[in-house]
């Protein structure tokens, strides 16, 4: 009465393991590549095991899952730092999406998006900034109305400190800060 559908069951004595798929020939494009295949070819990935030290320039969108130390410049493109990405660099790009960890300053001409579990320790400059609920951020945010002015790579050396608007002065001294004379108080330095 309650007959099982035997058609989907493997024959007795046979393994249920999947059949090996035919080998894929690498580097042989199909005669008519689909749109998704073309899209994939336009996105460059730096894999988990890759470590780059130095200057990284590009003119296409890039996803980093590995480690980069130095400088990254993608002036007109999107940089995505994947969940496994570890960046210790100054970053300049059109848009930056952070899902991994960044230690260094980020400047973007369009948007910086720190997603859930993304982490940024550094100063960020961008007209639009999004920080998700579970993201970590420590540093400063400068949302320039006119867009970020990305300095040239030669001006920024890897690991260099971010450009500060103010000249360095002594940090606040305990108990003495409040008693500064008016002459000092009158000094006003723009951001």
């Amino acid at each position, binding site marked *: 009465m309650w007959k099982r559908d035997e058609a989907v069951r493997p024959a007795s004595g046979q393994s249920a393991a999947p059949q090996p798929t035919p080998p894929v020939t690498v580097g042989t494009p199909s005669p008519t590549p689909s749109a998704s295949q073309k899209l994939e070819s336009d996105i460059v990935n730096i894999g988990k095991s890759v470590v780059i030290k130095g200057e990284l320039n590009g003119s296409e969108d890039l996803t980093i899952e590995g480690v980069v130390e130095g400088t990254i410049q993608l002036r007109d493109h999107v940089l995505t730092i994947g969940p496994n990405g570890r960046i210790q660099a100054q970053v300049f790009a059109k848009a930056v999406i952070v899902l991994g960890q960044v230690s260094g300053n980020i400047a973007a001409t369009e948007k910086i998006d720190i997603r859930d579990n993304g982490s940024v320790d550094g100063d960020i400059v961008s007209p639009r900034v999004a*920080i998700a609920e579970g993201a970590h951020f*420590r540093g400063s*945010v400068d949302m320039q109305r006119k867009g970020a002015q990305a300095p040239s790579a030669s001006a920024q050396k890897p690991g260099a400190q971010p450009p500060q608007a103010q000249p360095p002065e*002594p*940090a606040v001294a305990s108990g003495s800060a409040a008693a500064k004379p*008016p002459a000092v108080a009158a000094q006003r330095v723009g951001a």
Partner: protein
Amino acid sequence: MGLLDRLISRRAESEPGPGSTPREEPVFATKALRKFVACLASRESPILLDLGTAVGSNVSFFGDHLGCKIFVENIYDDLERHIAGGTLDAFPDFLKTRFTRRVQSVDGILCWDLIDYLDRRSAIALSEQLSGLLRPEGALLGFFGTAPPRDRFYSKYVVVDALNMKHQAYPAARGRQTVLQNRDIIRLFPSLRVSDSFLLQNNLREILFRKPAWGG
């Protein structure tokens, strides 16, 4: 289910457990934020120091709408780290060297309710630092509780607009230390003057300090 069971279950639902996601509270009206914003808006490219967790909507509000440059210095995290490491005794000294910005370089400080979580020595150390960082005519916004310390959670304050806020509770290693009297709060900031003080319907005290034009 009896009335008592229902009350207990309701209370359990409302209290955040360790590692739980932030619990969002309803929006509440704020009186002092509008004045704080007005103070910042009157300045060109104001510098804002936020002592709490980075909140995306706050960054948008102060950065995009007001054009502030925002420095996020999460002191709550520092406090948690010191509690976890058993180095709370060193926290006041840590606070004295915590801020690397120069004297009188900040237009506004969002202190939130941080001082409620500090012991007296730490609170004095922090208030001295903040008073020094503030520019003449700069503003400091602080929240202070009125209820006795009971729960162990921090509040993440989220600006909805200049008139409304909401806060999300998330677990803390220790709760508020004490309920400060108004006079004690004022004494913490001797170089600042109280510009406005409000008691909100949710029993939160909002106090807006301003630094005198002559620099305190």
